[in-house]
C-alpha cells in the first residue's frame, strides 16, 4: 500500500509518541520514588494521548476500516516509522530522563513549527500538545541537570547515557521523503544550542563527533522495536477481530 506523504508523516508522529509512551510506562510501579513514578507515568499518558490524536487523524486520512487501533496494533516492524531514539531501552533512570529530554527538546521545536503549518488538523494537535511538551522539557531538563551535577555516580551514569543515546539524535534532523511539512534540518542548530545550555548547567558536554544511526523514519529499526511490538500487539494478534 502506498500512503500519501501526509499519511506517512502523521504515522511517523503517531508511532514516535506511542513508542516513547510505551517505554515510559514500563516505569509504572518501578520508579525510583513514588512521586517520580507518578511523574513519568504522567508523561507516558501525555504521549499516549498525542499518539492517539495522530493515529485518529491518520485513520481518517486513510479511510475505510482504518482506526487508531488498527494502525497501532496491526502494522508490522517495517511499517513503524518512529525515531530510533524513542525505542531504545529504558536503562537506568538517567538514561530514561535523558532520552526524554533529547526528544522533548526536539518535539518542542517541531511542534512550534507544526502548529503553524497549513494542515489544520496537524496544527491543532501540535498546538494542543505543545503545552505538555513544554512541561516535559522542563521536567526532563531539570533531571538532566540534577543528575549531571549531582553525585559522582550520577554524573558517571549520565555520561554513559549520553554515550548510549547520542548516536540516535542525528536522525531527528534528517528528513524522510514524506517529511515535508516542517523542515527538520533547520531545527538542528537551535536544538543543539538548547541542549548545550542544559548540558553545560549539568556539567556535561555534547560528544564531539559520533556516527549517527539512521533509519527509523523509514522502518529500519534497532532490534528493540520487534519486542516492543510483540508486547504491544499481543492481544490483537492472538484474537484477530475481537473487540476489547
Amino acid at each position: 500500500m502506498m500512503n500519501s506523504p501526509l499519511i506517512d508523516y502523521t504515522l511517523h508522529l503517531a508511532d514516535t509518541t506511542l513508542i516513547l509512551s510505551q517505554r515510559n510506562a514500563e516505569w509504572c510501579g518501578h520508579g525510583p520514588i513514588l512521586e517520580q513514578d507518578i511523574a513519568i507515568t504522567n508523561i507516558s499518558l501525555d504521549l499516549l494521548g498525542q499518539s492517539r490524536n495522530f493515529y485518529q487523524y491518520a485513520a481518517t486520512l486513510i479511510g475505510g476500516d482504518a482506526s487508531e487501533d488498527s494502525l497501532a496494533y496491526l502494522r508490522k516492524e517495517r511499517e513503524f516509522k518512529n525515531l530510533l531514539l524513542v525505542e531504545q531501552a529504558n536503562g537506568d533512570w538517567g538514561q530514561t530522563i535523558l532520552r526524554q529530554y533529547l526528544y522533548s527538546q526536539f518535539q518542542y521545536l517541531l511542534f512550534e513549527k507544526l502548529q503553524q503549518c497549513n494542515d489544520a488538523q496537524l496544527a491543532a494537535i501540535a498546538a494542543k500538545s505543545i503545552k505538555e511538551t513544554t512541561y516535559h522539557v522542563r521536567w526532563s531538563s531539570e533531571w538532566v541537570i540534577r543528575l549531571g551535577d549531582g553525585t559522582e555516580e550520577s554524573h558517571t551514569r549520565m555520561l554513559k547515557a549520553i554515550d548510549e543515546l547520542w548516536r540516535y539524535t542525528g536522525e531527528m534532523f534528517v528528513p524522510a521523503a514524506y517529511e515535508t511539512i516542517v523542515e527538520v534540518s533547520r531545527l538542528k542548530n537551535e536544538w543543539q544550542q538548547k541542549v548545550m545550555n542544559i548540558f553545560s548547567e549539568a556539567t556535561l558536554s555534547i560528544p564531539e563527533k559520533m556516527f549517527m544511526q539512521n533509519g527509523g523514519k523509514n522502518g529500519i529499526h534497532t532490534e528493540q522495536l520487534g519486542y516492543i511490538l510483540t508486547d504491544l500487539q499481543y492481544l490483537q494478534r492472538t484474537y484477530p477481530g475481537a473487540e476489547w
Partner: protein
Amino acid sequence: MPVQDFEQLFQKKIDNEVKIEPKDWMPDAYRKTNIRQISQHAHSEIVGMLPEGNWISRAPSLKRKAILIAKVQDEAGHGLYLYSAAETLGMSREEMINDLHSGKAKYSSIFNYPTLTWADMGAVGWLVDGAAILNQVMLCRTSYGPYARAMVRICKEESFHQRQGFETLLVLSRGTDEQKAMCQDAINRWWWPSLMMFGPKDSESTNSDQSMKWKIKRKTNDELRQQFIDMAAEQVKVLGMTLPDEKLKWNAERKHYDFGEIDWNEFWNVVKGNGPCNKQRLEARRKAHEEGQWVREAAMAFAEKRRSKQKAA
C-alpha cells in the same frame, strides 16, 4: 492529669465523633494500630500496582491502555496519600518502606495472585477494587483525621476503577466465545481471594474489639463481606456469568445471600508468604527502591549544592 483521664477524654472525643488530629494526645496503641493499618493500606496500593502494571504494555487498545495507566498511576497516588497520613503519626515513609521490604509489614494478600489474562484487569477492577471500595467508604469516617481525609480523596478517585473493571468484563462477556471463557475464568480465579480480602470471620477474633471502639474501623469483616457478596451476586447476572460457589443462594429470611466456606488455609498461607507471587512482588519493590537509591541521593546532593550556591551569591 493521670493517663486514665487522658484515655477517658480521648474515648469521649471518639464517642462524640470528634476526629483525632496528629498532635492530639492519643493512646500509644491507637497510634500504633493506625500506623500499622495505614501503612499496610499504603503498601497494598503500591504492591497493587504490580499485578495491573503487568498488563500495561499489552493492553488491547489504546483507549484501554490509557485507562489502565491512569488507574495504576492513581494507585501510586493513593499509596502516597496514605504514607503521608501515616507520617503524621511519627513514622517516616522510609521506615515504612523498609518494613515492607524486610517482610515485617504486610500488604493485602490479594496482590500475591497473578494476573494471567487481560480479563484479569476487569476482574481485579470489579471484584478487588469493589471489595476495597466498601472498606474505603467506611474508612472515610474513621476517627483519625488525616486517614479519613486521605480516604475521602481516594474514594473520589477510586470510583472510576470499579466501573472500568466491570465495563471491561462486560465487553468480554459480549464478545467471542474465547473472550467469554476468558471472562468466566478470571471471575473464577478472583472471586474467593477477593472474599478473603475482608479478613477472618468475626467469630475468629478473640479479644475485645478495640478498633471498633476507637472507630478506626466501623463495620465488621463479616458485615462488609456480606455487603460485597450481595452486590456481586446481582451484578454477575448482568455479565451473564456465574460466581464459582455452588452454595451461593438468596436467603429470603436473612435478606442476604448465603455462601460457601472460604478456604482459610489458603488465606493464611498467602499471608505467610506462600502465595503464587509473594516473592516476585516483594522483589520488584525492593529492586525499584535499591535501583532508585543513587537517583534519590543525587537529587539531594544537587539540592544541597544549589542551596549553598544561593547562599554564597
